[in-house]
C-alpha cells in the first residue's frame, strides 16, 4: 500500500513547517519541500496486527509502507529532524529514552510496524505523545520513521544481573 496522505491541506502545511523550522537543520530541504509521495487520498486507517481481534475476526484497515525504508540519506535527515522538532527533549539524545520511552531498544509500546510508528508520530498517543502530523506533515513523519528504523537495536537481553560473572 502506498503511504497515507490524509489530504492536501496537510501537505501544504508540511511545506510551511519545512521552511520555518526543519530547513534550518536539514541537509536536504529539497526532499522535504517536494510534494508528498503517493498523492492518492488513501484513508490513514491502520490495522494493528498485534491487537487481539474479537472472535478472531480482524477488522478492515490497511498498512502503510515507508517510502524511504532503508534510505540512509533520509535517515540522516531524520536524525536532524529528531533534534529540530524537539523529540530529543522527551526521548533523549539518540532516542535512548528520557520521560518518553527508549525508541532504540527494538521494543515498541504501540507497535513497531512502519505504519504503527507512523501513526504514533502523526496522530500522537495518550499519556503525553503530541501529534506531530500537523506540524511535520506526511513526509516529515516518514523521515522520522526512517531515522528510528535505522537505529541499530541492541541485542534483546531481558536479564539485568548484578551477580558476579
Amino acid at each position, binding site marked *: 500500500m502506498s503511504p497515507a496522505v490524509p489530504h492536501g491541506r496537510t501537505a501544504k502545511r508540511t511545506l510551511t513547517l519545512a521552511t520555518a523550522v526543519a530547513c534550518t537543520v536539514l541537509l536536504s530541504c529539497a526532499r522535504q519541500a517536494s510534494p508528498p509521495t503517493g498523492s492518492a487520498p488513501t484513508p490513514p486507517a491502520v490495522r494493528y496486527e498485534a491487537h487481539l481481534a474479537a472472535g478472531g475476526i480482524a477488522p478492515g484497515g490497511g498498512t502503510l509502507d515507508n517510502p524511504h525504508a532503508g534510505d540512509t540519506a533520509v535517515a540522516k535527515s531524520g536524525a536532524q529532524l529528531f533534534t529540530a522538532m524537539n523529540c530529543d527533549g522527551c526521548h533523549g539524545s539518540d532516542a535512548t529514552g528520557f520521560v518518553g520511552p527508549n525508541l532504540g531498544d527494538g521494543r515498541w509500546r504501540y507497535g513497531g510496524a512502519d505504519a504503527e510508528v507512523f501513526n504514533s508520530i502523526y496522530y500522537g498517543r495518550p499519556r503525553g505523545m503530541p501529534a506531530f502530523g500537523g*506540524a511535520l506533515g506526511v513526509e516529515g513523519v516518514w523521515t522520522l520513521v526512517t531515522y528510528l528504523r535505522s537505529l541499530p537495536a541492541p541485542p534483546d537481553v531481558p536479564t539485568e544481573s548484578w551477580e558476579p560473572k
Partner: protein
Amino acid sequence: MPRAARFAGLVCLSVALAPPAPGAAAAGTPADDGQWTMPSKDFAATRYSGLADITPQNARSLHPVWTFSTGVLGGHEGQPLVVGDTMYVVTPWPNVLYAFDLRREGYPLRWKYRPEVSSNAIGVACCDSVNRGPFYADGKIVYNLLDGHTVAVDAHSGRELWKTQVADINEGETVTMAPLVVRDRVIVGASGGEFGIYGWIKGLDLATGQTVWSAHNLGPDTDMRARPDTFRPPYDHGADLGARSWPNDSWRTGGAPVWGTVSYDPKLDLIYYGTGNAAPYNAEQRLGDNKWSASVLARRPGDGSLVWAYQFTPHDNWDYDATGTMILADLTVAGQAVRALVHFDKNGFAYTLDRATGRLLLAKAFAPVNWARSIDLNTGRPVLDPTKQTGVSKGNVKGICPSLEGGVSPSSPAAYSPRTHLFYTSTNNLCMDYAAAHASRLKGTPFMGINAPYSAGPGGYLGTFMAWDAASGRKVWENREPYPNWSGALVTAGDVAFYGTLDGWFKSVDARTGEVLSKFKVGSGVVGNPITYRAPDGRQYVAVYAGIGGDWALLSGDTRSDDPSDVRAPADFLPDIARHTSQGGIIWIFAL
C-alpha cells in the same frame, strides 16, 4: 456520572462517621499543636516540629507501624498533611487525594477524591508526573493537578468546592508545586522551564477559586506587577529589567517557572519564591542577564505587587533553577541580628539574604562548584570561571560542577532548627559536560537544546545529607551517601533529623552530630519529604513517602519495571541503582 454518584454516597458516610476537628493552625507561626497543615510545616518553611518524644536516646527503636500503597508509580515527591485526626495524601498524576482516619485501627480511608486529570499533561511535564503536596486552610484541602488546575476539596467531606484552570498544557505549562495559602489568597505557579513558557505566579480567591491577580516572573514591568514606587531590587535600577535583559523579546519564551515551595513572612507581609531556569538551555538564544529567571522574588500576597528581586544566576547557562525553598529564620550574622532568608541553590552556593530588602549577606559553596569562584557581596553577582560558560559556540564544555541536577534538587527542601541554629539538607555530588544546540520553539514541545551527560563529582560519593550554619556559611557535619540524595529534610525539638535515600533507606540521625540512629529499607527510593505529628492516641509519629522518580535524566529509566517496551541501559554514573530499588508509591508511618 456513575462515578460522581458513587462518590456522593461515600461522602455522606464519612461525614456521619467522623468530622475531623482541625485546630487553629494556619496563622502566622503557631505554637506546635502536633499537626502538619502546610507543606513546609510553617510559613517560614522550616520543616521543624516542636514535638520531642523522639530523641537521640530512643530513636533506635523507631519502627514502621503502618504502610499503604498509593497504587501510583510516578515519583512521590512532597509530603502528607495531618489535620486533626486525618492524614491527607496527594499522589503523582493522576493526583488522587486520600483522607485517612487516624483514629481507627489500620487507618481506613474516610474518602478518596479522584479528579479527572488529562493524561496529555504527562508529556508536558519535563521530568516526571510529580506533585509536591496539598495545603490545608479554612476547612479546605487545596492542591494542584498536573494538567493545570487548582482544586479545593472540603476537608471533612471530600466534596469538590471549586476547580480553576490556572495553566495551559498547550503552552507547555503543568502544575507540580504545592500551593501556599495566605489569608484568603491561594498562591500557585506553573512548571515549564523546559517548554519555553512565559513564567508566572497567580493569586486565587480561597473562597471561590477565582483568579484575583496574575504576575509574570519576567517581561515588562506591567506584566510583572512591578511599579517604580514599590519595586526596589537591591542591586538593579531602571524600568523593565525583566524585558531589557533579554534580546529580541526572548522573554516571551524565557521560562522562569515556579515549581518549588512558597514561604511567607506575616510581619513584612511578603511571599518569597524562587524561579526556574531561563529557556532555552542554549543560552546564546537569549544573551543578557535574563531577569528574573533563577531568582528569588518577594511579593505582596494580596495583590501580587513585586517588592524586591534578586538573581542568583544571571544569564543561567547551566539549568540552575532557583526553585528551592526560601527558609525564613532570624539569625545573628557577623554580630548583627538579621531577618534572614536562607536558600540552597542548584548552582551549589548557599545564600543568606536580608529578607526585608533582598540584600546578600553571605554566599558560600555547599557542594563542589566550579562555574563560579565566589559570589561578590558588593554586587550580588557571581565571579565566573570563563572556561565553564556554555552555548552553541562554546561546543562541548566539560567538567562543570554542579550538574544540572543541582548541588541540591529544588525538590528536596531543607529544614531549620531554632534549637541547633542549623540547616539540614540533602545534596548531590555530580558534575556534567554541557553541549548546547540550537533549540527550535514549537509550542507544547520541549524547548531546550542540550546534551549534558553527568559524571560523579570529586570524592567518590554521589550525595550527602548535611548540617549547615547559615550565619557563618560553614558545613557542620555531613553523611556521605552512595547515591544522589533526593529527599527533603525534617528536624524536631527532640534534636533528631530525618531523611531518605535514593536507594530506599529511611534514616533518623542526631541533629547535632549526624550520627545515624535508625534506618529502615522502605521499598523504593525516597524523593519525598518526611513529616512528624501527634496522632489522636497522643503518640508522635513520623511519615514519609517511598517512590523513586522525579527526574528520568538522573535515573535513566533503569528503575522502571512496568513497561516491557521500554528497556534501558543503566546510567554509567549510577550503574546499580536498579539493584536496590524500583518504582512504586508507598506511604510509611514510623513510631517508637
